């Protein structure tokens, strides 16, 4: 064999390895009939991503800053630059700001909100411009409705009427509440909804029972009443919270959850939280090692070592 032939073989081998590698990665992403639900650790604020089969993504709120792009970027397959649905539960900046960045960066087909605008807020003004410039379809939730996506369903439970008056100025009250159903697994996203809305939903007899509850408003005491928690009856309660001066999550909320023997997972302790379900089996993934560490004080031990 001459040197030239050797060289050619080497080049071919490298190209071959790369192709196999790429195919492998593609194969990993395909053929999975599961729903993945990410609760991102974005600090004090909310941001979650649903990934349905066939790479249909739904972003629910965007957190307080641009950090969401890194989170979403690592959760999406590298060849997919389209987020099919973006849902803004209400226009407070700890939910809104990241949504604006996502709309700016990705191809978004549909923008879903409660229709309350915040023209005093620069990010909201940018949102309006972006929706106009990029020609994004907008949907306003003003009656209970449902959206069928890739074998699953998103039920919009609230607002169940056109918001007006005070509901448009006290932004939390108008939060979009949605329940994601995939086979036998359900997830309840509550935005920052207060107790009054919880009571209203229970009164109307809306089915809110879910396996996973995103605890409303960073676990504040203004939400998560005892009756509502019983009604939802979740296995897991996710609290999306960061460093803050409001005293979130409130001890009362934590006690309620503990009394009902619900497993509480906090983004400030566990980092990003990922649930995976095939419609029957619900699995919790993510930085559980970190959570375990923090529980056993192993992390403290490690920092002492350093």
């Amino acid at each position: 064999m001459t040197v030239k032939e050797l060289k050619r073989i080497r080049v071919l081998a490298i190209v071959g390895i790369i192709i196999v590698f790429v195919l492998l990665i593609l194969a990993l992403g395909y053929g999975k009939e599961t729903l993945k639900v990410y609760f991102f650790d974005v600090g004090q604020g909310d941001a979650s991503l649903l990934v349905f089969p066939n790479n249909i993504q739904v972003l629910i709120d965007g957190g307080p800053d641009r950090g969401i792009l890194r989170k979403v970027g690592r959760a999406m397959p590298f060849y997919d630059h389209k987020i099919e649905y973006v849902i803004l539960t209400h226009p407070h900046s700890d939910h809104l700001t990241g949504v604006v960045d996502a709309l700016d960066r990705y191809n978004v087909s549909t923008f879903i909100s409660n229709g309350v605008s915040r023209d005093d807020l620069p990010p909201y003004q940018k949102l309006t411009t972006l929706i106009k410039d990029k020609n994004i379809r907008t949907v306003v939730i003003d009656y209970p409705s449902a959206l069928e996506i890739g074998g699953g369903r998103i039920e919009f439970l609230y607002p169940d009427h056109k918001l007006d008056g005070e509901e448009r100025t006290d932004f939390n009250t108008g939060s979009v509440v949605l329940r994601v159903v995939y086979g036998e697994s359900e997830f309840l996203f509550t935005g920052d909804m207060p107790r009054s809305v919880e009571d209203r939903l229970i009164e109307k007899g809306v089915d809110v029972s879910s396996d996973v509850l995103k605890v409303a408003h960073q676990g504040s005491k203004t939400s998560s009443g005892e009756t509502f928690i019983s009604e939802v009856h979740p296995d897991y309660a996710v609290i999306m919270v960061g460093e803050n001066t409001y005293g979130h999550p409130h001890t009362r909320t934590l006690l309620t959850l503990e009394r009902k023997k619900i497993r509480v997972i906090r983004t400030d302790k566990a980092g990003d939280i990922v649930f995976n379900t095939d419609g029957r089996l619900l699995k919790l993934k993510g930085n559980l090692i970190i959570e375990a560490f923090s529980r056993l004080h192993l992390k403290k031990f490690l920092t002492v070592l350093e």
Partner: protein
Amino acid sequence: MGALGYLFGIAIGDLIFFDLFFLYLAFLAAVTALIFLHRYKRIKIFSVILLLLFSGIFRSSLEDSFFNSKDSISAYVDKTLTINGNISESPDVRDNHQRVILSRITTENGRRLSGNILVLLSRNEIFTPHPECPDLEVRYELDEARSEGNKCPERKLVGAGFTYGENLTVKCALEFPSDDYGSYLMRRRIYAICPFPNFTARGEIENPLLGKIFSGVEFLKNNINSSLHEPYSSLMAGILLGDRRGFGEALTEAFKRVGLTHIVALSGYNVSIIVAIAMVLGRHIGISRRILFIGVTFLLFLFVIATGASPSAVRAGIMGWLVLVAYEVGRLGRPLNLLLLTAVIMVTFEPKILLWDVGWQLSFAATYAVLTIPPLLQDSIPRYPNPLNISDMLVITISAIVFTLPLTLFHFGGWSIIAPLANLLVLPVIPVIMALGGFMSILGDMTFLSFLWNWPAWILLRYIVTVSETLSSIPLSYRTFDNVPFLFMLLAYMFLGAVVWKIKKRTYDRKRA
């Protein structure tokens, strides 16, 4: 020797206050000695060195006298005023705000102030259109607009896409911190902070060529952004364009812990190592010397232009090019002198960098190491099986790390123990990423061919992220020290110097024998 004397003089002049008059006398004395006693060789050399030393001190003192004057911005701290200036570095965009440095400051009545200002701006600022001026998108207070006889300015977005060289007018209450952060800012000639101005107006980029370049760079960045997800797109922009846009705290911290921060920083450190690695790799693959030289020179040129030809980019480019020359011309000697000469020229332009610009010091140390050490160790490297010339790359990275370590310890108090491994794993793919990034940023997202560069680039970038995250999570990979004394750094460099001298002498002796 003379060059060292000059640099030393600059350093002294920076640290100690000299009266310009006495300096003048001393200077005169040295000149006289040189004129009348030039027959004695020792005195001649001595007085030349002294002369250079004095001119160094002089240059440095001149700088201080500029900035202590009452025309300095520091005289306006705690006052509210309208300032106009040019952006002097590419903006540092964080997750929730951005930092812009303004230089060439003038006040509203046209008075020129010395020093720079750090302006904090929100990221999403859009201007409320005023009823009387529906197209007015700049956040003017209307009274101001009227008194200046302004018509409604053009539609423009404040808050996004600031570039180096752009002209900016802000109105705000200046402040300045008196703690460590303040003294850090002082060293960068920043004498005031303007936090979130309540009035901002953008002018044109004064230099039309720069304007062209930046719209070009913006085009490249958009292409990268549409081809890759975060944080990979930020990383690509960082590697390719030295863009300091946020990768987020977590990744920045991980890079710091594994000693990889330099791959996204715009410095001679980065450029020198990468040029050296690219040369080693290129030669190994079998590209001819000449093509490599021309190609890499061209790429360096493009790199400097693309990063906006800011002073730090130009300096980095020059140092990288010196390494290239060393590899092209053959070893040592001249490139080292060239390095000293460039240092002298750079320091004459900006005396402050010598003592206060850590980036510059790191660049200088690393470039020196890359130029000096590998040729010296050439013969003593054992010839193990050596795929991709790993031993050469290892020598390059380790010598750069060793020679910058005392500096990083002194300035940052941190030592990344795992850095050699991390660098060895990551540096070889950097030239490849740069090449792929070139295609990606120029050709963009052409739907059916773009996967040819997007996918491999994604894999490699992800590889870098994974490597740094994995290595940084290993306990004990990074050690911090409090208050490393200056003496330690001095001794460390003296020790390194002695070692280099010893090895040099030995190889010299061996060659003669």
